[in-house]
């Protein structure tokens, strides 16, 4: 047995479909917590509406947001996994088949960045990142569709031997620039160090972590806590119309690097749409989230 082209095609397409119709349980739970501590009445109403919208979408099988974004995947490959067939093509074909059958249909969101033409396919689409997991006999596929609403506010800057103060100030500056726009309360991913590409990847992957799960190192976990408190003093609030709940979690990760230190910051809107599943060598599929 092996992990086949057919399996990856079917699972990747299914994950995308699921991710459009369900607000993950951890995000819902975080919204309920924020509702409990929110002091602004309009903001509380907005949070109530968000939770009701999540329920309605799931109950009726509707999209939570009309902007389905573009398909973005992380595929983590166990080094003991056996792959069979054109796995990269499986993502392309799975998305094409989904576009043809999904109900209600998807809007044309895949955009050529130079001509601005839009459709349902394009160069390097879906966007897939591959990683290795030592010794695992499965592949894990995580789908996290991304759209302009929160996607456009990500930013990266490279510093030279920055202090923590410089790093944290920069995170706040990016948050201030995003302001009311990224459909708060957001999850904020911060990637520090490594190299230009590593920092961006770490910040993105930090947003995939279960909402509010602290970094295993105490120093980083403390930074996450104080950044979350700081962001929630800015006042932008749910949907950016004022309130305490601007962010439900700040997730930080870092890599060792040289003295030049990239700091990357990105946002997930309140829906935090992401789904994941494992496919094992014996063909078994396990949905994780």
């Amino acid at each position, binding site marked *: 047995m092996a992990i086949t082209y057919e399996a990856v095609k079917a699972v990747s397409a299914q994950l995308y479909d699921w991710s459009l119709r369900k607000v993950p349980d951890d995000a819902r739970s975080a919204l309920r917590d924020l509702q409990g501590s929110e002091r602004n009445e309009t903001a509380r109403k907005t949070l109530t509406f968000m939770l009701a919208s999540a329920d309605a979408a799931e109950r009726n099988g509707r999209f939570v947001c009309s902007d389905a974004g573009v398909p973005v995947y992380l595929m983590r490959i166990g080094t003991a996994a056996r792959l069979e067939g054109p796995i990269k093509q499986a993502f392309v074909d799975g998305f094409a088949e989904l576009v043809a059958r999904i109900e209600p249909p998807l809007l044309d969101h895949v955009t050529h960045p130079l001509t601005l033409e839009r459709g349902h396919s394009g160069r390097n689409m879906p966007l897939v990142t591959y990683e290795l997991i030592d010794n695992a006999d499965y592949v894990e596929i995580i789908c996290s569709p991304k759209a302009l609403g929160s996607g456009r506010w990500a930013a990266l800057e490279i510093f030279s031997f920055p202090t923590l*103060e410089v790093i944290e100030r920069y995170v706040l500056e990016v948050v201030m620039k995003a302001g009311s726009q990224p459909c708060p309360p957001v999850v904020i991913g911060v990637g520090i160090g490594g190299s230009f590409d590593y920092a961006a990847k770490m910040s993105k992957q930090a947003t995939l972590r279960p909402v509010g799960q602290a970094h295993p190192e105490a120093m980083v976990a403390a930074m996450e806590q104080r950044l979350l408190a700081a962001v929630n003093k800015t006042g932008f609030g749910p949907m950016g119309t004022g309130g305490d709940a601007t962010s439900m979690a700040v997730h930080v990760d870092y890599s060792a690097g040289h003295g030049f230190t990239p700091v990357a910051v990105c946002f997930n809107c309140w829906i935090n749409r992401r789904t994941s599943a494992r496919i094992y060598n014996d063909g078994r599929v396990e949905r994780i989230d």
Partner: protein
Amino acid sequence: MPLDAAQARALRVGDTVRISGDIVVSAGLPTYQRIADHLRDGHALPINLRDGVLFHLGSYSRETQGGDLEVLYINPTTSTRFNALMPGIIRGLGLHAVGGKGGLDAECVKAMQDAGCVYLSFPGGGSALLSEALRGVREVAWPELLTHYRLVKLRVEGLGPATVAIDAHGNSIYAELQAGSQQRMAQILDDLQRDREQQGRIDQR
């Protein structure tokens, strides 16, 4: 809907509203450019928007087997994308309500004051509930555009809740929040410094 200037001016920042009647929507930058071009050239628009409402809402419309159009879902899109075009459109058409999510800039706020126009913030990610207000498609213009770019006149009942985030008197929640957060920034950074010191993790590098 319809809404006149006096009714729009009676609304205040922070009010929550629901909308019933006919609204016109489009989520396409090329669409707003085309509207601006029509106004500049003195051409009539295919849907009458004079004294009307125009929202930055995306919609999926398609033809039914009977030849009618149905709208499957709607949702707000980021309004600031249209900042450069909206002052001319708001003044040129005398709009009394615009909206979407994320707000509009200071030039738009001035245009809204002149026209007696409010900005309504719709909850993003509210597609499932917002779409329940749909009662039908009245008109579709520019069918050659992508479905969410078309200019679509919809009949809605109880669409919302939407928050009046910019009123017709020059008040903008977005401008206030941005200014307020800038003011608090020094204090927020001081708090961060205090937290770092308390945790005994002052940078040693």
